[in-house]
């Protein structure tokens, strides 16, 4: 007897699941960076316009597809057209790549969280060198927070070629992260829902891209979540709510991030002034405490004129302290979360408390997104009768977690962070654009927009407004095609891809070229998900031909 499809206990649970999936680390570390790069508040204009024109319609489309077909991404698209189930497969492949590398971030968050219970915080002091006469050289050249991230957490190698061994500490944390994810998905649906420069064309492109990825379109997670919905639930309302909450979280996170930037910039600026004062005081034997921030420039000018030879000796070491240059440092990604924020936290009062709260928040965001991700992988697998007849749901979940964890150990090697960056930059970007484009075209033109609209009306009891229809059929696909062309040409024009490697001797990042096998890996990443669409279509075509060929002689 066929088991009933599990349902969300109430619509609120579904909304919360979507929100916790959509609101992720990207809201915290990508959106504030984009705001800073593209003119601050004015970035909100392209962002909100893209939200209304691209984000909400596509989100509504994915939720509606899931709710209508009541299956995961593979099954849903097979229902639309058997040739298009490749789209679902591509979604699952991309989700699998994401699952592999995204949980490493949670592992790092766990690592920092466990280290937050010490006094002083381990990233606030440099360790001593061999004969205890000074601080470790690498730590002196960089800063203590950078040292803790690159040396203690990652133990990073100087380039991607030097693989090194698996580091047992981050490996343990990765194992724990996967166990926590497994614990949450074990019970299935019931447990995942918890109580989530205007003229510059780049600003618009980045606004469109941010909305796209921030909402998590194309991974199949939203289809998976919506497939567990009652057919009559109002997915239009849900789509609007989820996208609005996601955007307001991004904006709120930027406000917090900018205040953290300000705090850090002020602190570093005052530190810089203090160092310059000390240097001048020691060189010219001025009275201790004489130099202050206000008279520094005046005294510097005087000293330069009165003792030119001595001043020119010490001049190369005098840094020009400027608050603006401190504020201008814009960082995104793991650099923001684990270096800039920890630097600001270590200078606050009661830093252990803030550190624990901050990494706990990162964990909540990360694990929420991971659950949506694993749902995207597991729902098609549990829907498929072949697999679910042989294995119970717990075993399938366990197997997926185990395989992802094992492969994820690559990211805990010494060169792991470089591979992480490869996955982060290339695994999802182009493939998702293509997947969502094919999704939209499939629903509007293969399944038929009129048929879909009448289905929705029958399901939810509400008519679909003309706005959504125009967006689905026309505007959004065109936008995606535009984005796709832009990114493709950008990659081609850039030539060889480069990456940032940590140079221990200099204590800073240097740019290096990817070796050939890394470029091959990038190509494989992108190809393995995008090729699913044409390959499965081709495979289905061939199978059908064969079946028709078999049937013909019998008839």
């Amino acid at each position, binding site marked *: *007897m*066929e088991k009933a*499809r599990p349902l969300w206990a109430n619509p609120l649970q579904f909304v919360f699941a979507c929100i916790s999936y959509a609101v992720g680390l990207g809201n915290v570390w990508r959106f504030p960076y984009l705001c800073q790069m593209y003119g601050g508040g004015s970035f909100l204009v392209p962002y909100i316009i893209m939200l209304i024109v691209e984000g909400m319609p596509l989100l509504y489309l994915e939720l509606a597809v899931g709710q209508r077909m009541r299956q995961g991404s593979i099954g849903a698209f097979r229902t639309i057209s058997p040739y298009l189930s490749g789209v679902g497969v591509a979604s699952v492949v991309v989700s699998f790549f994401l699952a592999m590398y995204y949980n490493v971030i949670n592992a790092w968050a766990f690592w920092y969280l*466990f*280290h937050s219970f010490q006094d002083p915080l381990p990233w606030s002091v440099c360790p001593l060198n061999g004969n205890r006469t000074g*601080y470790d050289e690498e730590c002196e050249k960089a800063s203590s927070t950078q040292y803790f991230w690159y040396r203690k957490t990652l133990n990073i190698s100087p380039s991607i070629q030097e693989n090194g061994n698996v580091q047992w500490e981050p490996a343990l944390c990765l194992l724990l992260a996967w166990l926590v994810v497994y614990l949450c998905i*074990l019970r299935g649906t019931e447990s995942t829902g918890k109580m989530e420069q205007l003229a510059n064309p780049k600003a618009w492109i980045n606004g469109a891209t941010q909305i796209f990825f921030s909402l998590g379109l194309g991974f199949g997670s939203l289809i998976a979540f919506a497939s567990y919905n009652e057919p009559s639930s109002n997915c239009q309302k849900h789509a609007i709510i989820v996208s609005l909450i996601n955007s307001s979280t991004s904006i709120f996170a930027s406000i917090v991030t900018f205040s953290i930037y300000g705090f850090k910039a002020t602190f570093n600026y005052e530190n810089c002034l203090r160092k310059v004062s000390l240097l001048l005081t020691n060189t010219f*034997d001025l009275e201790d405490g004489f130099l202050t921030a206000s008279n520094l420039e005046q005294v510097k000018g005087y000293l330069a004129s009165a003792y030119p030879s001595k001043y020119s000796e010490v001049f190369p070491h005098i840094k020009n302290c400027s608050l603006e240059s401190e504020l201008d440092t814009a960082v995104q990604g793991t650099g923001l979360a684990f270096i800039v924020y920890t630097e600001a936290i270590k200078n606050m009062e009661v830093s252990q408390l803030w550190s624990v709260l901050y990494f706990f928040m990162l964990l909540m965001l990360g694990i929420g997104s991971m659950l949506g991700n694993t749902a995207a992988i597991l729902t098609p697998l549990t829907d498929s009768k072949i697999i679910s007849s042989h294995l119970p749901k717990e075993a399938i979940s366990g197997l997926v977690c185990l395989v992802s964890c094992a492969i994820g150990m690559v990211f805990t090697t010494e060169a792991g962070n470089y591979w992480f960056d490869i996955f982060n930059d290339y695994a999802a970007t182009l493939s998702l654009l293509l997947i969502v484009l094919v999704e939209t075209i499939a629903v509007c033109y293969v399944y038929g927009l009129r048929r879909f609209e009448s289905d929705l009306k029958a399901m939810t009891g509400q008519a679909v407004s003309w706005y959504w229809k125009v967006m689905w059929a026309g505007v959004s696909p065109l936008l995606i095609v535009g984005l796709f062309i832009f990114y493709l040409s950008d990659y081609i024009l850039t030539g060889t891809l480069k990456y940032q490697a940590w140079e221990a001797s200099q204590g800073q990042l240097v740019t290096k070229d990817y070796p050939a096998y890394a470029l091959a890996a990038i190509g494989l990443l992108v190809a393995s998900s995008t090729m699913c669409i044409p390959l499965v279509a081709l495979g289905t075509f061939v199978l059908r031909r064969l079946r028709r060929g078999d049937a013909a002689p019998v008839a």
Partner: protein
Amino acid sequence: MMVPLHSSVGVRARSCLHKNKNKQQQNTSSTKMTKLHNSMIPVLLLRNNIHVFTYIHRKENTRQKGAENAFKVRLSIRTALGDKAYAWDTNEEYLFKAMVAFSMRKVPNREATEISHVLLCNVTQRVSFWFVVTDPSKNHTLPAVEVQLAIRMNRNRINNAFSLNDQTLEFLKIPSTLAPPTDPSVPIWIIIFGVIFCIVIVAITLLILSGIRQRRRKNKEPSEVDDAEDKCENMITIENGIPCDPLDMKGGHINDAFMTEDERLTPL
């Protein structure tokens, strides 16, 4: 604005040290004169407070022999103590000489070091000065290595005498031994990791076991109901020839009303 030097504001222009003890008494007064001639005394008048600062220009040739055995000391009293900062005067210098002599006495073969053997020189307003320890019997300065060793061993006592620490009382050629951070035998993070790890494992095991138990119970009840239903269905198809396809649940078109009732009954 040029203002004549006021000696009352803690400015010390001390005679510089000649390492030959014979010359020392002779040249004290003369070097004092040369010092005043050679020193440049610019002064800045700042707002209401008169901050007098002088930059004493040191003549490089005043230290000849024994220059390699002299150490520069730098104090940052105001940075360390703020309002409670004391002024650096001759008494403080006496204490310093006493501490250095004390440290030297701890070195074997140097137990006879007296305070008068320690010579200070070039005191600036920073406050910084040079010092050297002489051996009057042999008429030379003690080797730098011995002085360095002595100071390093008693660094803590010297710091405490002046209520300063390694950063605010600097001996420029003597690196201080930094205190290593306290390392507990078991790193704290492993303890917390172990706790959370065990909790998660226990929770997973509980959930899996309860899931297995629930499935076993579900399989026992509906299987009995199932057999009866299947027989009925088969009979119906045989009797009426109506195919069972509409009753098949595969299309995902589930009669919600029926299913919700079923689910309500199952936990019993």
